């Protein structure tokens, strides 16, 4: 018998016990500066369009409709770091020719771009753009110079129909991903302030896009290395086993951070309860 809830919506119980949420306070702190940044960029973009209408009109000719929308967004929000036509600005932002739609989908879709400020690593934030806008931006960058694209369609396999997908995905996960993202998908530290993020809140498309594009310091896993089918297996494992499965070993999974949280728990819970009990037992009544 199972709880009759569709995948992805576990109800309030799940929110209480299972998933580690992002750090909202930090995100909120960043939000303010991000909003100011966007405002400044919008202003800069506006000024730019007023003074350079000719260049604008010339470029748009070969772009599709969606890409044109994307270009407008790009020129508003991205151009100050990534330069005109995404050619990059030395010391500010990389060249975007050939990074592909997958990269845009990941970076903008997870709120990492636009960046609030230059730092060791772009932080995940509440996205600045809605899904449609992200797709337009992605289409624009795709048409600038091609590159990898996240395929359409369902990325999570049905384990009933394909019983081996989970196990295969798990094997791929352990050999390719756990060294940074850890066995439980909780993420981990890299050198000098960089880190591999937690996978708990990543959507299948984001995971797929990240593998294709290798954002930040993540290595690229191209389609020759992990075929699209293998990527789906991997995503199936991450989604069904790490994200959607309730841990069978307890009400709380202690964040799946490994023995360190278990050590904290034995002192904060076990030793504390038993010391208070000892105080009560030996206390003069």
């Amino acid at each position, binding site marked *: 018998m199972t709880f009759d809830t569709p995948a992805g919506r576990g109800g309030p119980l799940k929110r209480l016990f299972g998933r580690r949420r992002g750090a909202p306070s930090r995100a909120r702190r960043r939000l303010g500066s991000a909003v100011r940044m966007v405002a400044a960029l919008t202003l800069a973009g506006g000024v730019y369009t007023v003074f350079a209408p000719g260049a604008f009109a010339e470029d748009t000719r070969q772009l599709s409709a969606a890409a044109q929308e994307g270009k407008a967004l790009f020129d508003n929000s991205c151009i100050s770091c990534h330069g005109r036509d995404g050619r990059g600005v030395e010391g500010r932002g990389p060249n975007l020719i050939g990074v592909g739609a997958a990269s845009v989908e990941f970076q903008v879709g997870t709120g990492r771009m636009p960046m609030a400020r230059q730092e060791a690593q772009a932080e995940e934030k509440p996205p600045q753009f809605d899904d449609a806008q992200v797709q337009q931006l992605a289409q624009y960058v795709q048409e600038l110079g091609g590159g990898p694209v996240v395929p359409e369609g369902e990325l999570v396999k049905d384990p009933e129909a394909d019983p081996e997908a989970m196990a295969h995905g798990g094997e791929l996960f*352990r050999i390719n991903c756990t060294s940074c993202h850890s066995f439980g998908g909780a993420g981990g530290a890299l050198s000098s302030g960089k880190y591999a993020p937690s996978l708990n809140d990543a959507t299948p498309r984001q995971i797929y896009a990240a593998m294709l594009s290798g954002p930040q310091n993540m290595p690229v896993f191209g389609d020759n290395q992990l075929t699209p089918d293998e990527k789906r297996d991997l995503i199936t494992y991450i989604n069904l086993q790490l994200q959607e499965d309730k841990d069978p070993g307890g009400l709380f999974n202690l964040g799946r951070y490994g023995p360190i949280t278990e*050590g904290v728990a034995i002192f904060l819970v076990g030793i504390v309860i038993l010391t208070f009990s*000892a105080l009560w037992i030996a206390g003069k009544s």
Partner: protein
Amino acid sequence: MKRRKLDIGALPGATAKQLDDRFQVATPLRRLLNKVFPDHWSFLLGEIALFSFIILLLTGTFLTLFYDPSMREIEYEGSYTALRGVEMSAAYASSLDLSFDVRGGLIMRQMHHWAALLFMASIVVHMARVFFTGAFRKPREANWAIGLILFLLGFLAGFTGYSLPDDGLSGTGLRIASAIMLSIPVVGSWISSSVFGGEFPGHLIIGRFYIAHVLLIPGALLGLISAHLALVFKQKHTQWPGPMRTNSNVVGERMFPRYALKQGGFFMLVFGVVALMAGLFQINPIWLFGPYRAAEVSSASQPDWYVMFMDGLVRLMPAWQIDIPIGDGYVIPPLFWPAVVGLGALTTGPIFYPFIEARRYKDKKSHHLLQRPRDVPERTGVGAMALTFFVVATISGGNDVIADKFHISLNAMTWIGRIGLLVLPPLAYYLAVRICLGLQQHDREVLAHGVETGIIKRLPNGRFVEVHQPLGPVDEHGHPVPLDYAGWVVPKKMNRLGALGPAVRGFFYPIEKPAEAPTSPGMPPVQPREERKELTSGGQQ
């Protein structure tokens, strides 16, 4: 023939008589029933370790019924979907079966693991209690040494147990253990090769660790725990100083009925807490770790908490390699110092502390009365220093998780640990000694002048003084006669003297109505209207 009627009522007596005829137990049994134990909450910390050891034996025995200590490669066919069809060792497969295909096996595994963590945690807490109260002094040096060896054995038991499931995390631990063996000068490669029966990982190590984990180490633990308890019995428990308590007696409760009953109840509590934790908190989810493969690893790979101090020292160790340019050249890798020398020194070094202290204080007497930490500032300082070192090293054992979750640079965490390990212990020593001296001084002040009452008296010449409530008799001028310090709590609040109502009971909120302050015969109850009247400290005169 008339059958003799069986007298049920006389049966126990008769049986007892028959038993005593054969075994002469009456006198020793009476001695056992009549043993006096002092009562203090801190004396129960060691019991937690004893009780969790019993839980470990019970749950561990259950686990052996299903566990297969074999490194034979098989294909997993159990009910855990995400590993079905994966090649793995029989040891790992049987650990998975224990978790998923044995009804109630997972709770047993988790109880075993939590009990192991609790065992080690209570050993450390108990050891701290013994150290800070000076309970290790003559004649108990041997029991102190046994306790330290018990910690080391528990460490080994924990590590071998951590390795048995043969999952990805425990295999990583084994690999580090092999590297630690390799780092030993001259014989390192021979030791590793001998322990693993060849190059790492070989096919033997799980079987060897299994017999060590279920027979050799628990046997040694059982023997030493028995010796530990026997010595407590023989030498009788230490006690705090206090009324009637001297160095040559024990004041407390006889073992039966009340003391033994309390022990039984406490065992149930420890068992209950372990079971509760096993139900609430998932521990060591081996199914996520996968079978051990030499190429696979997880970020945040750490040992269990009691090994973490060693791992932390290994992480903090600078890359100092010693090259010995003889022949082809030999090396002592940096791993050797924290993992072999450090672990050895940290677990065996404290064995000698009782002798060092006795020598320093030229103290050859037997001590059965405990000392309050404040009364021996140097020892307390040394203890604070050791504890700080242990805590910094332990935290550094998880510094990558801390760096990740608190958004600190990993490299910065390493440097914080390196500097902290050198700077914080002396600082802890200094602070602990200062605090001890301050507390001592306050005790002496109260003994000399009495308890601060919070009542301010104005003298005829206009000076204000605080009225003190003397603890003992007063001289002809009404000044308290200074009292000697008895090594025990000095009352510092009026309610401890009965001059105010007793402290209100209840931890978070009062569970009873605060009692009315008793009126002392020398001091009339304070009348609201009579504020202007000069307050007198009537009790003094």
